[in-house]
C-alpha cells in the first residue's frame, strides 16, 4: 500500500451528493422563489460550454475541505427569480436586483451544505458574476441539474481552486 493510498482523504468527510443538493435547492425554491412550480431533478449536471448571459451565484465554504457552491442560471431565469423575491414585475428588475437575489439563493444553499460538513467549516460572502467558462466536471464533488418551468439551473459543489483553507 502506498503512503498516498494509506492516508484518509479529507474529501471522505464530505457527505454531500446530488440528492442533497436537489433537496436543499428545492426547499429554498419552495420557500422564497416559487411555492407553486417545484424544481424537477434532471440528474447530475451535464457540462455545457459557457453561453452568453449565464449568471453564476457562488459562495465559498472555507475550511479543511475548501469548496465553492455555485448556482448557474440564464439571465432570463435570474430575472424571474429576482422578480419573485422582490415581488416586482420582471420588466422592473435591475441588475442589482439580480445580483442580490442570485447571491442570496447561493448563500442559502451554501449555508445548508456547510451544515453537513465538519463544524470547523465556515461560509464566505456570496458573489455573482457572468459566466466566462462552463462548469468543470473534474472539479465537481456533487452537482445537480434542475428544471424550473422553462428554465434550467445547475447547482454544483466544486473543489475550491487553489485549495486554500483560509
Amino acid at each position: 500500500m502506498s503512503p498516498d493510498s494509506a492516508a484518509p482523504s479529507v474529501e471522505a468527510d464530505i457527505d454531500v451528493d446530488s440528492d442533497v443538493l436537489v433537496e436543499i435547492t428545492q426547499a429554498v425554491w419552495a420557500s422564497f422563489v416559487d411555492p407553486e412550480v417545484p424544481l424537477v431533478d434532471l440528474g447530475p449536471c451535464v457540462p455545457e460550454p459557457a453561453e452568453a448571459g449565464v449568471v453564476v451565484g457562488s459562495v465559498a465554504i472555507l475550511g479543511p475541505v475548501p469548496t465553492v457552491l455555485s448556482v448557474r442560471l440564464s439571465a432570463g431565469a435570474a430575472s424571474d427569480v429576482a422578480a419573485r423575491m422582490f415581488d416586482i414585475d420582471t420588466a422592473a428588475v435591475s441588475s442589482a436586483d439580480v445580483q442580490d437575489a442570485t447571491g442570496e439563493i447561493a448563500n442559502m444553499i451554501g449555508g445548508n451544505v456547510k451544515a453537513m460538513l465538519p463544524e470547523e467549516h465556515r461560509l464566505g460572502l456570496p458573489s455573482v458574476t457572468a459566466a466566462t467558462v462552463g462548469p468543470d466536471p473534474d472539479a465537481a464533488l456533487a452537482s445537480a441539474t434542475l428544471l424550473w418551468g422553462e428554465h434550467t439551473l445547475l447547482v454544483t459543489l466544486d473543489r475550491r481552486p487553489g485549495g486554500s483553507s483560509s
Partner: protein
Amino acid sequence: MHALVVDDSRAMRRIVAGILRTLDFETVEADNGATALAELERLDGEGTVPVLACIDWNMPVMDGLQLVTAIRAERRWRDVTLMMVTTESEHGQIVRALAAGAHEYLIKPFTADAMADKLRYLGLVPAGVGA
C-alpha cells in the same frame, strides 16, 4: 410594535419585513450590524426602540453575532428580543448565538408560518394573528 430587520440581502429583508408586516409590525431595515446599531440609536432617540430584531449571521462590516453581542452590552436595549434568521444551522453556531444573547433561532429557508410560530412562542404575536 417596531421590528428591525438586519440582512445584507435586500431580497431577504423584503421577505422578512413583509412577513412581519402581516403580523402587525412596523419594520425598519439595516444591511449589516453597524448600520443596525445606527438605526437602533436613531430609533432610541425617537423613543421607538424596536421590540424585535431579526438578524442574519453572515454580513459584511459587522456580522450578526457581533451585533447580538453589541446590543446585549447596552442595558437600555435589554428588552429588545433578538432572533437570528440565518443559514448557520450547526448546533455549535446556535449555542454561540444563544450564549451571546439571542432569544430564538430561525434557519433559512423558512416559511411565514414558521416565523409566526417563533414570534408567537416569544409572546410577540397574539394567538390568532397570522395563523
